[in-house]
C-alpha cells in the first residue's frame, strides 16, 4: 500500500525501487549468509565452472608441494609469494576439491615484467613523461597502448581442462579480484591434504588494441614459467616465501 501511494511521484518510485532491492538483498542467499551456508559451513564463490582458454598455463605442483601439506598451507605459500611480488589483493574462489587464487589485472612490459607504482594497476594510457626526442618518436610511431596480465592459481582435483570455446573479457577479468573472497580458506577445505591435488597456473595475457578494444593473446609469446619469473614469483614460490 505504501509503495503504491508513493509510487506516483519520482521520489515515490525511487523508494519503491529501493524497497525491492532491499527485499531482494534480504531474500538472496548470497546476502543472507555471505560466504556461509545455512549449516554454518563456509563456502567460496565460484568464478568459473571451467576456466576460459588461457594464454599460457603450467603445472606448478612441484613448486608448492615441498612447502605445504594442506590446502590452507598451499594458499599461504601462494598468497605470501604474491604479496611479496606486489599483489596486495587476491581473490579466493572455489575450485573442484580445492580453491583458486585470482590476481588483479596488472600492466606489464612486452618482456612480461610488471610496471611499477600506480601505473601497474591502471588501464589508462600512460602519457609521455620524458622530453627526449627518441622517446617521443618511439611513442608517436611505435607505442602500443599496453599489455596486461591476470594470473589464476588453481589448486584442485579437477578443473585442469580449460574451456577452449570461452574467451576471457577484460571487463570480467578486472572484476574478478573484487568478487572473490578474502583471507583464509573455509575450514572444510583448509585442512584437506595437498596430496592428490594439482596446482596449476593460468596466465591471461591481454593486449590493448590502439583503435580500442582488448584481446587475450592466444597463445602468449611468453611461457607460463617466463610470466612467473618476470612477475618475481617463480623464485619466491620455489623458496616457499
Amino acid at each position: 500500500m505504501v509503495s503504491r501511494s508513493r509510487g506516483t511521484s519520482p521520489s515515490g518510485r525511487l523508494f519503491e525501487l529501493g524497497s525491492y532491492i532491499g527485499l531482494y538483498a534480504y531474500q538472496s542467499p548470497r546476502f543472507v549468509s555471505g560466504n556461509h551456508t545455512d549449516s554454518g559451513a563456509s563456502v567460496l564463490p565460484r568464478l568459473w565452472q571451467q576456466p576460459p582458454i588461457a594464454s599460457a598455463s603450467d603445472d606448478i605442483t612441484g613448486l608448492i608441494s615441498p612447502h605445504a601439506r594442506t590446502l590452507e598451507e598451499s594458499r599461504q605459500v601462494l598468497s605470501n609469494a604474491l604479496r611479496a611480488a606486489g599483489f596486495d589483493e587476491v581473490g579466493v574462489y572455489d575450485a573442484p576439491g580445492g580453491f583458486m587464487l585470482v590476481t588483479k589485472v596488472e600492466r606489464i612490459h612486452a618482456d612480461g615484467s610488471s610496471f611499477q607504482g600506480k601505473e601497474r594497476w591502471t588501464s589508462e594510457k600512460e602519457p609521455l613523461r620524458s622530453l627526449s626526442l627518441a622517446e617521443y618518436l618511439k611513442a608517436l610511431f611505435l607505442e602500443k597502448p599496453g599489455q596486461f596480465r591476470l594470473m589464476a592459481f588453481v589448486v584442485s582435483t579437477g578443473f585442469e581442462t580449460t574451456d577452449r570455446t570461452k574467451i576471457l573479457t577484460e571487463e570480467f577479468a578486472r572484476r574478478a579480484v573484487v568478487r572473490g573472497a578474502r583471507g583464509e580458506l573455509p575450514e572444510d577445505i583448509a585442512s584437506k591434504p595437498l596430496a592428490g591435488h594439482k596446482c596449476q597456473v593460468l596466465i591471461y595475457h591481454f593486449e590493448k588494441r590502439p583503435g580500442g578494444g582488448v584481446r587475450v593473446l592466444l597463445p602468449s609469446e611468453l611461457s607460463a614459467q617466463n610470466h612467473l619469473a618476470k612477475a618475481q614469483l617463480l623464485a619466491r614460490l620455489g623458496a616457499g616465501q
Partner: protein
Amino acid sequence: MSRNKSRRLPTLEATRAHLFRLWMVGSGICALILASEAVGGRFDPDPSEVFGWLMPNVLPTLSLMVALIRAEATQAAEDTQLVKPLFASFAIWGSRVYLGAILITILVEPFTNYQPLELLKFSNLWLGPLQGLVASSIGVLFLTERQRERAQ
C-alpha cells in the same frame, strides 16, 4: 603613388597558388605522419579510421582548389586581378593556423592521456569551426571569376 600601392597588392593568381602550395604541403605532412603511425600499427585493427578523420578535414578544400586549377590550366592569359591584402592574409594565416592545429593535434597525442583515435575525434570540436572560417575565405578566393573572364 597609387601605382606603387597596386604593386604591393597580391594578385588573385598568386594568392591562389600560395594557398594551394600551403594546403598541399600541410595536408601531405599530416598524411605522411599518420601513414607512418599506421604502418607502425598504432591504429590497429582498423587503420582506415584515422584517414576517415583526416580526409574530411582537408579534402573538401583541396578538391575545390584542384578543381579550379584544373579548369584554368589551359587558360594562358595573364591574371591582373588584385586581392585586398587583409583578405589574402586572412585566408593564408587562417589556413596556416588550421593546418597547424591539425598537425599539433597529431603530434601532441603522446603527451596526453587520450588514445590516438580518441584525441583525433575529440579535436573535431575545435577543428570544425576553424575549418568553416578558413574554407569560406578560401571559397571566395577560388570561386571569384577572373577579370579576363568577366570582360569576355
